[in-house]
């Protein structure tokens, strides 16, 4: 009798939470569709630029361009792509955990690496732990354009050329499918893994191969970063969608269980009342 109203209250509050999580799930799933189509729109650009970079890099071997040369590593930079908001399951935590583990393995002191943070959760994590955060972007829109990331990408590439660090790695969640996202580490700079061109057209360079590499390589590296961002965004939406679906399902289970409890309690109350009436009537006879 005591907890009848209490149970009813819990059912109601769980129901309203379920409404929220369900709405968030639907929002995320439509955002995921958009993010996937953005990632698709980006593919032709990437393929093309890869093709040309491959052709030129193959044609002008030993160009000595700073972005193609491997230097002895004194300092490493990590560009970490996370999200601004939580409620996305293990999206941020898995990336941060893995990066922290790598850092602990590779580096002895905090002077040996720097961090570029994309997303508030990532930035706050590293700032709080006193790591060297030298650049950050927060509050990126859900469907980012190249212009949104341009500045940090340009900084990351520019500082490598200036020799502020000797390697640049990216950490992001690679979107495999709506239910599976994998934390991925990718080496951006120096550009040692340029795929050879598929088409072996012998290009004429205007004005020269070196001058083109000068323009092309930063653009290429920036596009790699943008590609990772798009991938990361798709993962974020997918991850949030899954998390919210789980929350909605859990809420359903909880409501079912609470309803059962509520009905039992109500039945018990009725039975007790009948027993009392019957008892009262019997006492009168």
């Amino acid at each position, binding site marked *: 009798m005591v907890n009848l109203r209490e149970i009813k209250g819990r059912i109601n509050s769980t129901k309203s939470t379920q409404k929220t999580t369900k709405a968030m799930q639907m929002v995320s799933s439509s955002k995921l569709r958009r993010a996937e189509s953005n990632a698709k*729109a980006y593919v032709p650009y990437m393929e093309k630029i890869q093709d040309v970079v491959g052709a030129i890099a193959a044609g002008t071997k030993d160009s000595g361009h700073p972005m193609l040369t491997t230097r002895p590593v004194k300092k490493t930079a990590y560009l970490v792509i996370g999200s601004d908001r939580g409620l996305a399951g293990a999206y941020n935590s898995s990336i941060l955990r893995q990066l922290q583990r790598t850092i602990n393995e590779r580096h002895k002191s905090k002077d040996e690496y720097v961090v570029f943070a994309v997303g508030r959760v990532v930035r706050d994590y590293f700032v709080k732990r006193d790591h060297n955060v030298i650049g950050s972007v927060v509050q990126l829109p859900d469907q980012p354009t*190249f212009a949104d990331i341009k500045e940090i990408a340009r900084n990351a590439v520019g500082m490598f050329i200036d020799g502020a660090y000797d390697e640049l790695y990216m950490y992001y969640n690679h979107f495999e499918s709506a239910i599976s996202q994998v934390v991925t580490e990718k080496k951006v700079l120096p550009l040692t893994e340029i795929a050879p061109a598929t088409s072996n057209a012998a*290009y*004429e360079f*205007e004005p020269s191969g070196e001058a*083109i590499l000068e323009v092309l390589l930063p653009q290429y590296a920036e*596009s790699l970063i943008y590609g990772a961002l798009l991938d990361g965004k798709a993962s974020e939406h997918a991850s949030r969608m899954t998390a919210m679906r789980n929350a909605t399902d859990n809420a359903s289970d909880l409501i079912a269980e609470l309803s059962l409890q509520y009905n039992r309690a109500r039945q018990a109350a009725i039975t007790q009342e009948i027993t009392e009436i019957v008892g009262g009537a019997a006492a009168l006879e």
Partner: protein
Amino acid sequence: MKTVTVNIVTPDGPVYDAEVTMVIAKTTSGEIGVLPGHIPMVAPLAIGAVKLNKEGGQTDLAAVNGGFIEVRPDKISILASSAEVAETIDLARAKAALTRAEQRLQQKQDNVDFKRAELALQRAINRINVHEGNI
């Protein structure tokens, strides 16, 4: 007349795809005109307009912010970090960018900002010119 396929591609997706008879682009070392059947070539582009002459005398214009042009005998690709064809340019936004860049130039801060504002100014002027078609 012979034609060649032209693609303008940006990270945010393709913006132009058509058959044209001649492409006129502004490279860092000067303007070039490319006709169908050109030998394979790559050249970096300056901030500027790309003129696309179509069959029948019609001309399309596109504003391109840097990037490069890749020429093959049967296909020309322009890859830029951003590009817009004349019809899709938001004039109000371009004008706002112009005033912003001008203000920043007048403040004359340190060198990096100065250079960036100058580039922004060039891009804005380029977009306005392309939109109004006075090239």
